[in-house]
């Protein structure tokens, strides 16, 4: 018997079945439907890029762990590196060359995660750091969006062509297309009102549909893997909420803020400002709201903090999309709010039991 109690440890002697590994796995599971659909939509080149990005992330994480003398298998199998690579791949142009994925992995895993001390220690969302670093370093490659070329359809590249696209960097002519946000922004800079360019966007692109919200929602449009098919991303997000991996607060605040502020300004001047629903369904808004902004490590821990954080992202995303040079503002907004997370945490601690919000003991009510 003596060996049983020899390790002196305080209780509790019951634990939930949740683990870091399970959490990461469920997030990956929630991403799977949207990912599969989009890999189908953009064909082999996107599959290659996806594999290269995730593979690089895992290998780099392993190297970093070895160098740091930390437990290799345990940390590698926690799924965090896979998730980072997966999220990064979903924000890249699907036909981008292989080195974009690999360089992105270096930015994400080495510079923004392991350099800070590994899982749980990083201030900024690694996938977003990588995306932004790539975007400002290689603006042309990083904005070479293409229209969907579903697998096994006419016009879709076969395997040989795909290898040339991903690993040879041979982008075929005439396939690139502007994303909705990018198009609207460019047109606005030429003096064409948003209301008009929105209609033109559908006609001008090589899509056969009229540009209604359904297109933006189902994802049959140019964009990154995570930018298209908002519906599947939304379903994945709802699954995570149902599984209690994330709470509804951050996504609801991001989407709600974006929608409200977008709608309000659109009502004020529809020639300058895009409608709220357009903001919600375009860009990687859903991916950002449900999967990026909710990243545990880089978001506030308390619900109140998460509400502030979500509103901040929604607001900044709209501001950046509307006034700044980049059409997609989500990544910047997330990073900016990441930097505020510690201070949000500090000011949004819950009220202690039996104390006022200032920390003083509650006054005793005089008994009736």
């Amino acid at each position: 018997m003596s060996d049983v109690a020899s390790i002196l440890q305080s209780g509790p002697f019951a634990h939930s079945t949740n683990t870091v590994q399970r959490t990461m796995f469920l997030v990956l599971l929630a991403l799977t439907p949207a990912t599969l659909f989009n890999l189908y939509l953009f064909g082999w080149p996107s599959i290659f890029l996806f594999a290269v990005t995730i593979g690089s992330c895992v290998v780099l994480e392993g190297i970093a762990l070895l160098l740091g003398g930390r437990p290799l298998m345990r940390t590698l199998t926690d799924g965090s590196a896979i998730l980072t690579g997966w999220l990064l791949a979903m924000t890249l142009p699907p036909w981008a060359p292989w080195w974009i994925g690999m360089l992105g992995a270096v930015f994400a895993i080495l510079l923004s995660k392991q350099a800070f001390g590994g899982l749980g220690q990083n201030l900024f969302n690694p996938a977003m750091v990588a995306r932004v670093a790539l975007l400002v370093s290689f603006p042309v490659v990083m904005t070479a969006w293409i229209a969907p070329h579903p697998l096994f359809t006419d016009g879709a590249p076969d395997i040989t062509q795909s290898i040339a696209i991903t690993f040879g960097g041979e982008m075929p002519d005439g396939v690139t297309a502007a994303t909705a946000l990018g198009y609207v922004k460019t047109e606005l800079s030429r003096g064409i009102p948003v209301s008009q360019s929105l209609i033109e966007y559908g006609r001008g692109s090589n899509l056969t549909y009229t540009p209604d919200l359904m297109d933006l929602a189902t994802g049959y449009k140019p964009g990154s893997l995570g930018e298209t098919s908002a519906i599947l991303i939304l379903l994945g997000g709802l699954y995570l909420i149902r599984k209690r991996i994330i709470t509804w607060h951050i996504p609801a605040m991001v989407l709600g803020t974006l929608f409200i502020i977008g709608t309000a300004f659109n009502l004020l001047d529809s020639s300058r400002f895009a409608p709220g629903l357009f903001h919600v369904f375009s860009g990687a808004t859903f991916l950002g709201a449900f999967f990026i902004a909710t990243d545990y490590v880089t978001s506030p821990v308390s619900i109140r903090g998460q509400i502030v954080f979500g509103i901040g992202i929604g607001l900044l995303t709209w501001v950046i999309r509307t006034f700044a040079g980049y059409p997609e503002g989500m990544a910047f907004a997330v990073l900016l709010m990441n930097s505020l997370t510690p201070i949000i945490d500090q000011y949004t601690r819950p009220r202690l039991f039996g104390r006022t919000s200032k920390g003083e003991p509650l006054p005793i009510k005089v008994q009736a």
Partner: protein
Amino acid sequence: MKLFPIRGGIHPDYHKELSGDCAIEAMPLPARLYIPVQQHIGAPAEILVTAGDVVKKGQLIARRQGQVSAHHHAPTSGTVTAVTEVPAPHPSGLPQSTIVIEPDGQEEWAVLAAPIDDPFAVAPDVIAERVAESGIVGMGGATFPSAVKLNLGIRYQIETLLINGAECEPYLTCDDRLMREHAEAIVDGARIMAHALGAPRIVIAIEENKPHAIAAITVAAEPFSQIETAVLPVKYPMGSERHLTLAITGQETPARKLTADLGVVVHNVATARAVHEAVRWGRPLIRRVITVSGEAIRTPKNVEVALGAPVSELIDFCGGFAQRPERIIQGGPMMGTPLPNLDVPVVKGMSGILALTAAEINDRPADPCIRCGACVNICACGLTPVELAAHIRHDNLEGAVKLGLLDCVSCGSCSWVCPSHIPLVHYFNYAKGALNAQDREQRKTERTKQLVEANAARQARIAAQRAANRKPKATTGEVQP
């Protein structure tokens, strides 16, 4: 009855089915009983017997000393074989003074205090005195001397006596069985305590996963209009004194204050039954009901056992181990503590003995914190466990105190929920203990300083006196020649 929500909380696996349907069984007397002199919060009791003394069942063998302390009585008749140091049922396994009794099997009662025929006609302090004489302490696990709590009616205007039948700890079913089988005794004990406190209202609060107990108590309380039965939602830590008070009255006990400041006193159902026996029968607290459970126990039971019986015999009574236990716990799995070995005795605050397998405990080495915020969201006290633990890890105890460390009730919810299995509560328990130790050292240093100053002053006085004494001599010396 309108209930009020409490913040956070968790829903662990309750495992109450293991022992919930087992009626209370009495365990035969073991060969030896070990009665520690400290089974309660406060000062240890003063030992009244020596080796060789013959004692009767219910005889006082250790007397309370100081304001907060408790009597201890012989659980059966027999001979005191030794008064010695025996490992305490405490994680440290450190020894404490213990009276060892060898039962003679006669179960011969000592002359007991006379039953109080009409407890509602006597003065409140008579009840409190009887409870003190009977050595009753809080039997939910807190082990605070009950008489002290009954005297709160003198200083506070008590509106409500809350009888805690929540039993929110997983596995434990002893309170459930007591309520099912001894509902009338509990109701009577509650009424007596309410009389002692001067409380016009009694609320017996039970979690809704105990429908039989709720039914039994409702029936027993039927004749008394002052008693209400509250059916609580199932949530851990609903049974915490302050949270239960909030759930029932809607009032939050201010930090560093007592529930009595709100006019509420909370007692456990087992305590109510003990009070009933003490007042109606004059019987002191010499036995209690314990849940023996866990997957490693062959036949989990609710056992009524004499205080002082070795835990090993209790486990044998339940068929011994069915498989190798990872840990033996006293109390529930959330707030209970590991036992140093199986030879330790049953004490007054022991509500359960759990032999848990590794699969039940489901612990694993800690992973890095991923800041998921689960601990923040489930903390019933509104703490930020992730930050507290970080401070404590870097020995910044003061920072942890600023964030509310001392408001933590160590309920264990944060450790339970943590996906990284970080031993958060262990950090808090360590920090609280370390702070206490610091306080003690601080007080000792203060005391030392005072003594040094007193000593220095006296030395100076003596030196001055000597000098003064020498001077006249010196002057006379000059004059003499």
